[in-house]
């Protein structure tokens, strides 16, 4: 005899539950966590490399790097001065999820750090669907990707708390309609905090780092 069972359960609820556990665990340790998301090549690792030296002496930073393979990014973060750098290899998965971050947190003495930078897998679609339990979502866009990306990847652009527009030093060489880009961002994420900068020349980086330090301080003084 067949019968109907009502469920109404969010399919990603298991991930969301674990993400909430991560969030509470990080908060208990006073560790502010940032989820860095971007397409491959936008400059996530370069942003970490440029951010770390500017935090020396003020914040103790750990980095968790997600990639399908290799430990190249964690090596770069360690070389740039991260007090701890952990590589997660997803083995083919296109995004980090809350379980992967949980395992990385197990490898860290959380109380020893003020800031955790989590570098997600380079991908403009999937990472947006999987909460990790971080406190801030940062999207790194870059000039060579083109001005149509907000229009084409609405999920990623609508979920970001901060937008970084990297490689602005290339603006003279590339056709990039800033109005069209900004229009797409404004539709999906009205008023989102935006930092135009260049990891190559250093332009705009201090403004981003100052803002980040204030965020961490506000978090720790709660």
């Amino acid at each position, binding site marked *: 005899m067949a019968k109907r069972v009502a469920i109404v359960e969010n399919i990603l609820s298991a*991930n969301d539950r674990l993400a909430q556990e991560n969030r509470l665990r990080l908060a208990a340790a006073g560790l502010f966590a940032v989820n860095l998301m971007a397409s491959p090549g936008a400059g996530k690792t370069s942003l970490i490399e440029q951010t770390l030296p500017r935090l020396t002496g003020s914040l103790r930073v750990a980095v968790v790097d997600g990639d399908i393979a290799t430990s190249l990014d964690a090596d770069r973060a360690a070389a740039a001065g991260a007090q701890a750098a952990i590589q997660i290899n997803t083995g083919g998965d296109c995004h980090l999820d809350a379980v992967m971050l949980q395992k990385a947190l197990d490898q860290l003495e959380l109380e020893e750090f003020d800031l955790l930078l989590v570098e997600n897998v380079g991908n403009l679609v999937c990472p947006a*669907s999987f909460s990790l339990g971080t406190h801030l979502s940062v999207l790194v866009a870059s000039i060579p990707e083109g001005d149509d990306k907000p229009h084409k990847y609405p999920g990623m652009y609508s979920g970001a708390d901060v937008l970084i527009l990297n490689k602005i030093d290339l603006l003279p060489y590339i056709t990039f309609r800033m109005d069209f880009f900004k229009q797409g961002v404004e539709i999906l994420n009205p008023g989102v905090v935006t930092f135009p900068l260049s990891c190559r020349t250093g332009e705009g980086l201090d403004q981003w780092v100052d803002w980040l330090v204030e965020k961490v301080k506000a978090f720790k003084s709660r």
Partner: protein
Amino acid sequence: MHELSVTESILEIALRHAQESNAKRITDLYLVIGQLSSIVDDSVQFYWDIISKDTPAEGAQLHFQRIPARLACLECGHEYSPEGDLSCPACHSARVKVIAGKEFRLDAMDVE
């Protein structure tokens, strides 16, 4: 792109509820998927047929209810389903919010 892990989550939820209601077999699953959730029906069905083997959910039929995207204009309040351009067709404002289309849930299932 990540339909395999998503399909595993669907199976986990379905088997858990089947056990709670003492069901022997799951015959049908009713999924609700928003247009903006970037999930591909065919791909979920493909993985489902593989991973549900040798479970009480083997052979279950998946039913997909698609929810179209609905946006609301923050300037004039107009509600609409976007076609290409996301801005408000009534007042052309770019300040809009998503009110439907992000759903991704398992609503119900039929069991024996």
